[in-house]
């Protein structure tokens, strides 16, 4: 269980995270979505007691992170896979963590095996690892203490398609056994396949959150007509908010019935009319976060 309560972080005049509130329940995977610079990592670091919040707070398993006597046994954290000493071997990196947490040595071998790092890889220095291998090592580090909660920042970064598929299975399995997972990404499609809930953040604020199904259902209607220009005019006249999607149609923030009615009234021939689903959520994601990523680029 992770509870985030009105977390805010200001750096001088810049507000990186503003009034972020959400909770992650046991047995679920929560996708934490947002473009680069939206405040995902800062929020996660605040949850883990690494960044002091300007206001608000967060608890893991009912306690503020910094009050956990042995956090590695409660919550597995992967914040940055490249933040490892390049001179240590993969096994040594895990051994240090295992000693700190008081986990026996067999667990190191078992966890290496679990994340798919074989003996040769474990004996190599982390400096020689590919990003994908570092992600696996980071995941091993998070799983080492057999925790009930996982916090992973962009864990799919650098993994090949097979690796991403493997990780989805691992996280799904973990949540199905009662674990709590908070997983961040800047790619909707990456978390869509595994998450039960979504928290979308842009410009430091939560712009949408809820059950994945509900968010997808509320994502609008995809509509395509033979005469796209006429459709645009019709939608505007009916005051239905529409945005052009990449495939030449429109995503309309309205029920399919309302869109179909407007088209019928105007005598338009539709070639496609359906709930937008993930395409719509992506559209929503892009519009909600567009301003934020521009700001990031300027900063």
């Amino acid at each position, binding site marked *: 269980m992770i509870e985030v309560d009105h977390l805010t972080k200001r750096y001088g005049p810049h507000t990186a995270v503003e009034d972020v509130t959400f909770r992650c329940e*046991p047995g679920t995977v929560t996708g934490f979505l947002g473009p680069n610079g939206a405040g995902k990592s800062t929020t996660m670091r605040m949850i883990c007691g690494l960044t002091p919040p300007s206001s608000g707070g967060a608890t893991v398993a009912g306690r503020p992170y910094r009050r956990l006597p*042995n956090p590695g046994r409660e919550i597995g954290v992967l914040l940055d896979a490249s933040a490892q000493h390049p001179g240590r071997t993969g096994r040594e990196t895990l051994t240090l963590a295992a000693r700190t947490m008081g986990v026996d040595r067999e667990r190191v071998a078992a966890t290496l095996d679990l994340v*798919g790092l074989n003996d040769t890889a474990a004996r190599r220095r982390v400096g020689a690892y590919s990003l994908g291998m570092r992600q696996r090592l980071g995941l091993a580090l998070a799983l080492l203490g057999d925790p*009930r909660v996982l916090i992973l920042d962009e864990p799919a970064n650098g993994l090949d398609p097979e690796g991403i598929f493997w990780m989805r299975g691992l996280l799904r399995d*973990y949540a199905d056994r009662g674990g709590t997972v908070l997983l961040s990404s800047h790619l909707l499609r990456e978390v869509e396949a595994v998450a039960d809930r979504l928290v979308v953040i842009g410009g430091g604020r939560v712009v949408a959150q809820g059950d994945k199904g509900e968010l997808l259902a509320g994502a609008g209607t995809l509509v395509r007509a033979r005469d796209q220009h006429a459709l645009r005019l019709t939608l505007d006249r009916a005051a239905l908010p529409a945005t052009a999607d990449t495939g030449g149609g429109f995503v309309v923030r309205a029920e399919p019935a309302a869109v179909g009615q407007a088209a019928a009234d105007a005598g338009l021939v539709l070639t496609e009319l359906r709930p937008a689903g993930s395409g719509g959520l992506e559209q929503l994601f892009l519009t909600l976060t567009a301003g934020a990523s521009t700001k990031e680029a300027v900063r």
Partner: protein
Amino acid sequence: MTTATVPTAAPARHEPAAGPSLARLTGVELRKLADTRAGRWLLITIGLIAAAIVVVQLVVTDAAEQTFTAFFSPSLLPVGLLLPVLGILSITGEWSQRTALTTFALVPRRERVIVAKLAAVVLAALASVLVSLAVAAAGTLAAGATGGAGAWTFDWALLPYAAVFQVANVLMGAGFGLLLRNTPLAIVTYLLLPTVWSVLAALIEGLRGPARWLDTTYTMEPLLGPDVTAGQWGRLGVSLAVWMLLPLVAGLVRTLRREVS
């Protein structure tokens, strides 16, 4: 698939595990000193330099002066120059390699990590005194075999002084590392400050008095001899309060408040 057959990914139900003891954390920090190539080589270099000094003495000094004490004391100086680097690296390495992210996520009570780090480098400093004793013993044996004096006379008062000398050296380094967090900056500052002091004291009349109390090159020198007077202890205490205690305390406060990213 792996995930279906290996039950270890399952979240366990267990009582909150107890936190790591300071002894365990110190063990981890000792291990960190030696588990990278750079760290291992620094430790090896410290040993080699102590040995090299003895070899030089065997070749250069008069046969009559080749005694255990004469081998022991000079080996302390170059080792004492490298120990601060060890102290600095043990602290700044966490920041430069960004391993602090893992370290402080596993032990959020950062002061415990810092205390463990200090304990680890103090143990390393004490071990270096043993190394100095060992190479001095080897030197004495070699001197005896090659026609030198080879006398085993040793003033035991030298031993605790040597320990204080090396511990102070390593802790001053750790303090600089803790305060400045940046490896090159900490090393350069640590090595440059005494020289700057000497130059300033030579140039400015009014600084000559304070320099006697604050210049560690000067205040720590008596520790290499057999006798340290009360006045010398006083000056040593004052200089260490400024160059060791102050950076350690200020650096600790900074580290506790710092954002880890």
